[in-house]
């Protein structure tokens, strides 16, 4: 609050002597928020320009070497490698597929959920929230038991004769081509299928929670009107329901995508080592075997930039959709 303001407008709230305390508190609050919510990001940015010292940790510096390494490799221009871009690419690949899958399967569920009675909705929400908060490590553990070769699905396939059946009708070869089978039986670890399945499972409850407000505000009278005018159920969904939830749908997909960009445990357990993502590389640089904090920081910044660009594009699309 500036002097001009306090002169110009009559003071409505509280007696004047309280103000200094309030101001001190406000300043304190601002300081705390800036120190804890902003400084960590600035540190990552600053360290990404640092330099690793062989046999030691790293030193402050201002070099773009880490970013050069990220895009074209250390030996550029003599040699070019896109290894690190490729890792970021895999981050995108898994996150995009998993988030789309999650939103598409959560949409009908949420739509049905909002049509239940309020009390029934609360019960479902408790269930959804409980599975939402369940740690990634527990979820990976569960799917790991379900998908690993000695227990779970592959064993079920074998014991029920499904494996033999697949072999007999010739689909087994297709599964092998997709990397979902070894010569003896189906296998899901490691595979893209298991990775995407677990990742979309991970964010599925989030998808429901994020779609829930928009869907519960849908005006039922609109689709009822369309129905009375003789439109079929599918036509109503396509021409009335879907257009009115297009924006929340897209927004949800983007949020889930950004969340999934940083998935760590699922990737380390289910993805093939040559498809490991930027998140895994960040960890091994900062805490793991490589011990190259500046390069890890540069990778984290690139991940953050990619996430921000995606969010911003989504925002732009929303604005354009609203305008047009």
């Amino acid at each position, binding site marked *: 609050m500036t002097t001009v303001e306090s002169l110009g407008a009559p003071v409505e709230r509280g007696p004047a002597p309280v103000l200094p305390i309030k101001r001190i508190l406000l300043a304190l609050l601002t300081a705390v928020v800036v120190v804890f919510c*902003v400084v960590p990001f600035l540190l990552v940015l600053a360290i990404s320009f640092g330099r690793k010292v062989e046999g030691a940790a790293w030193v402050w510096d201002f070099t773009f070497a880490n970013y050069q390494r990220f895009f074209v490799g250390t030996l550029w221009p003599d040699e070019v490698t896109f290894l690190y871009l490729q890792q970021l690419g895999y981050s995108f690949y898994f996150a995009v597929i998993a988030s789309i899958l999650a939103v598409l399967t959560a949409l009908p569920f949420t739509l049905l959920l909002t049509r239940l009675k309020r009390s029934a909705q609360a019960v479902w929400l408790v269930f959804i929230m409980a599975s939402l908060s*369940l740690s990634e*490590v*527990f979820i990976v553990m569960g799917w790991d038991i379900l998908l690993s070769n000695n227990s779970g699905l592959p064993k079920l396939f074998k014991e029920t004769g499904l494996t033999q059946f697949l072999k007999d009708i010739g689909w087994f070869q297709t599964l092998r081509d997709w990397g979902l089978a070894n010569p003896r039986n189906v296998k899901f670890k490691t595979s893209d299928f298991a990775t995407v399945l677990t990742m979309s499972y991970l964010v599925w409850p989030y998808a429901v929670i994020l779609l*829930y407000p928009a869907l519960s505000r849908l005006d039922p009278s609109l689709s009822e009107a369309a129905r009375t005018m003789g439109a079929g159920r599918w036509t109503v969904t396509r021409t009335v329901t879907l257009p009115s939830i297009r924006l929340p749908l897209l927004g949800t997909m983007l949020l889930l995508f950004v969340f999934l960009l940083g998935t760590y445990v699922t990737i380390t*357990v289910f993805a093939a080592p040559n498809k490991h993502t930027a998140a895994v590389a960040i960890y091994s640089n*900062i805490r793991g075997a490589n011990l190259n904090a500046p390069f*890890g920081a540069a990778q984290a910044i690139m991940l953050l930039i990619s996430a921000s660009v995606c969010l911003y594009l989504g925002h732009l699309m929303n604005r354009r959709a609203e305008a047009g």
Partner: protein
Amino acid sequence: MRLIGQIYMTLSAIVLALPIMVVCGAALNSGRSMFFPPREPTLARFGEFFISEPVWTAALWNSVIVASGAATLAVLMAWPIAYLLWSTGSPLSKVLAGLGSLPFAVPPIVIGVGLGFFWVFTGGLGEVWAGVISHAILLMALPLVTISVGLQSIDRSHLDAAATMGATEEVAFRTVVLPQTLPYTISGFFFVLVLSFNEFIVIFFVSASSYATVTLQIFNSLRNGYTPTMAVAAITFLTVSILVFSAVARWGDLPRLMGADQSRK
């Protein structure tokens, strides 16, 4: 059509419950390795997790400290920001709310890396109190949202009535604002509690392997293969989550907190 809907919801629930059921079933194994369905079911693993195995009891204790500390701290930081935003709507309050939600909005690994560096310079790396603060920072966005929802639900006419009857801002705050927002504050507290319990990646970076919470301990044990004791941890956490959210649904208004339309019952 109705039937298809019910089948779809049931199917979703089954898939959602499947890995959880498997983990829970595996906890009953008597041997050292995990089988599903369990062999020679026993409850001995529960004893190991809560009482006899120091690795797990220490991890559980750390989890409890970090989660309850972070929940308290997050609510204490979120309250003034939410209140400022609601009562003044000033640009500063909007900036504060935006910055406060930032750690929750970026991919978790980035804020994990950032806080990891932060604690290296401030001497908190590998300390439990740094873990508490880190989780409070990460999850502050949740009470910020629930408290804001609560404040918006206050009928302004109550405040006007209080003012007309001569209540100062402070008295009105104590007698109108606080009681009406209490359920939302508690909901925010519990959301942080549960998510902090289950959070992995940020605590992974800031603990620097010098202490372990339950999720960290489980990740560490993943490499040595599963033991049924890990499944007990999963059951415990799931029970806590269900109890907490049931309580929020019972005493708070879960559909409203999740943003349901108020006019329809």
